[in-house]
């Protein structure tokens, strides 16, 4: 990932290409706040034009800080941010071609919907007639054309966020930064808006950098998912990649709540596919609750047994936790059919390809030949 490798050549195509100018690029970006907190730790990331890049992670992982640095609301302590191939250092927020949608909408309370949407145009001195027309057009696209004369306090949460999105898109930014835009909406509306944001993004062909702590939202929206933890990137790649082959135990646990058990001690067997070298360094074994099968294992399969400690009905399935390991100090969650009679002691097993292994530094061990 060197700067010299990229030649400035704008392309209308949406598929990422090696020679295409990145929509945005962070090179070894670090951010330390005046208090001393290191919010971003050597973050390197590239977003292709027309992608939805989702930054996901727990609270305080630095995802919002990264977004604010991209938008120019915060400055970076070290490293470079390039937007459309140009170094963004010292460039004012409104000149970066980055618009932002806020979690709490950040609408101007004393302005009408139309005035809110048209505000960025007004600030860049677009003639009144044109900005009215563009605000109206934007409102129609977002299905809030009938609300133009309302004020924010007369709107529902979903309507407010549509106005926020309209205000961000009206000046046709290259990049739209969305900071947990759906977190304040109820569950059903969140799913609807998610689909609409996706449709809108494809229709307008913009690059979206989307911050969320909701893994479902992240997986469903992302062209590129970026899992962050403690200010650093744990894994960046396609959603399938991050979900199917998590690079670290953190990613495995965060996306889809994988079971992670310590591989040290006799009670937990190791996956058969681990090479001899890997067997020496393996520290953690992971398997998803839905990949564990209850019952006596076929010969040679990875399996454990344990005492049932809790059982939670999810509907057609039941989430059962069992105690496993040397002294029974570890637990595994497993999804079993709800009608399955439960004994106090449970055998569970898994297919080889559903097992994940990580070494003591949290690096993924892939074995040889198995996948």
């Amino acid at each position, binding site marked *: 990932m060197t700067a010299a490798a990229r030649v400035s050549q704008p392309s209308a195509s949406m598929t990422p290409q090696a020679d295409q100018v990145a929509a945005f690029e962070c090179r070894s970006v670090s951010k330390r706040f005046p208090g001393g907190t290191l919010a971003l730790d050597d973050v390197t990331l590239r977003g292709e034009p027309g992608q939805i890049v989702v930054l996901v992670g727990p609270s305080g992982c630095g995802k919002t800080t990264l977004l604010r640095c991209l938008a120019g609301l915060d400055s970076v302590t070290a490293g470079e941010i390039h937007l459309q191939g140009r170094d963004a250092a010292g460039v004012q927020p409104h000149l970066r071609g980055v618009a932002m949608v806020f979690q709490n909408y950040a609408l101007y309370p004393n302005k009408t919907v139309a005035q809110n949407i048209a505000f960025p145009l007004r600030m*860049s001195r677009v003639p009144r007639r044109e900005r009215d027309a563009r605000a109206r057009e934007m409102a129609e696209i977002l299905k809030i054309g009938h609300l133009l004369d309302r004020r924010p306090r007369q709107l529902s949460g979903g309507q407010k966020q549509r106005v926020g999105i309209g205000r961000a898109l009206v000046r046709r930014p290259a990049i739209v930064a969305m900071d947990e835009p759906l977190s304040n909406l109820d569950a059903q509306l969140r799913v609807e808006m998610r689909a609409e944001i996706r449709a809108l993004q494809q229709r307008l062909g913009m690059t979206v950098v989307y911050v969320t702590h909701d893994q479902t939202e992240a997986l469903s929206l992302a062209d590129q998912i970026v899992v962050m933890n403690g200010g650093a990137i744990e894994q960046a790649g396609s959603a399938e990649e991050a979900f199917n082959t998590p690079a670290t135990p953190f990613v495995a646990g965060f996306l889809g709540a994988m079971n992670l058990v310590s591989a040290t001690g006799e009670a937990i067997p190791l996956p058969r596919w681990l090479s001899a070298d890997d067997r020496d360094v393996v520290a953690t074994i992971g398997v998803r609750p839905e990949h564990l099968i209850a019952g006596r294992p076929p010969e040679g399969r990875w399996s454990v047994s344990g005492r049932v400690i809790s059982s939670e009905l999810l509907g057609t399935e039941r989430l059962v936790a069992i105690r496993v390991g040397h002294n029974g100090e570890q637990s595994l969650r497993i999804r079993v059919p709800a009608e399955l009679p439960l004994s106090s002691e449970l055998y569970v097993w898994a297919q080889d390809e559903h097992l994940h292994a990580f070494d003591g530094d949290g690096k993924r061990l892939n074995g040889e030949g198995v996948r």
Partner: protein
Amino acid sequence: MIGAVTAERSKQDRRLLRIPGTDGVIGWILCAPAAILLGLFMIVPLVAVSVLAFFGWDPLTQTDHAVGFANFSRILTSPDFRSAVLRTLEYTVLTVPVTLLLGLVIAVAVNNVRHGAMVWRTVFFLPVASTLAATSVAWRFMFYPHTGIIDQTIGRVLPVQGWLQSTDLAIVAVSIVGIWQALGTTIVIFLAGLSGVPRHLHDAAALDGATAWSRFWHVTWPALGPATVLALVIDTRDSLRVFDQVQVMTEGGPLGSTTTLSYLLWQRGIHYNDLGGGAVIDLVILLVVFAFIGIQLRTAGRRLNDGATR
């Protein structure tokens, strides 16, 4: 559904709070301390003044006697009174707009100071914490003709000298002290208002390309609505009742040019032993303050309620 549950709940709560056989007596007892204080210090004096306004004091017989509306017609038609009304309005016009504007500017400045904001806040609030009558003495020395620091500095540059002896400048001098005193409270009110301006609105405005001035005009100023109305009402009320620095610095002079309503009230009621006349002036001040605040809330109240902070 949820509403019904909450209603049921609050009914239960009320039942729990009620002590059987007391029939709300407890409520009255709990309200009593505040009600008694309010009565003693607000209602009783108001009634007393209203009654006094209809009585005259005869120095010869040393007795009170009812005089009907005589006090009103005597005071309200006197040139002293009309002059005092004009002086009070003049003082209010001189002080309130300047106080609000300066207060706003200083509050915004202090709010943006990166280091030592606490020091600045304290500095500007000090006049409020000190006694105006006492600091007015210091101001009187500063305005002292020829030898005072103001004549020694400003007086050397500008053709203004002997402030407190000039029928034109004395009211300005008194106003300057009034502004100096009122600034502290005004700044604190605006600072409180500024702390309520959501940061994400400023972020949004910065991304929308708003300049510092546009950000103030489109984000800060609308959000300061309630603070502005509060400061306006408080400063107007204080200005209409100005007394301390007039008493200490000019004693209403020269030639009555700083005799405001409150000073006239004191002069009449206490100095001349004309309690009835003083009471009339007091009622007038009360009415004027009510009228002003009423008009202000009527016209600016929308800003108060808008509370454009969300």
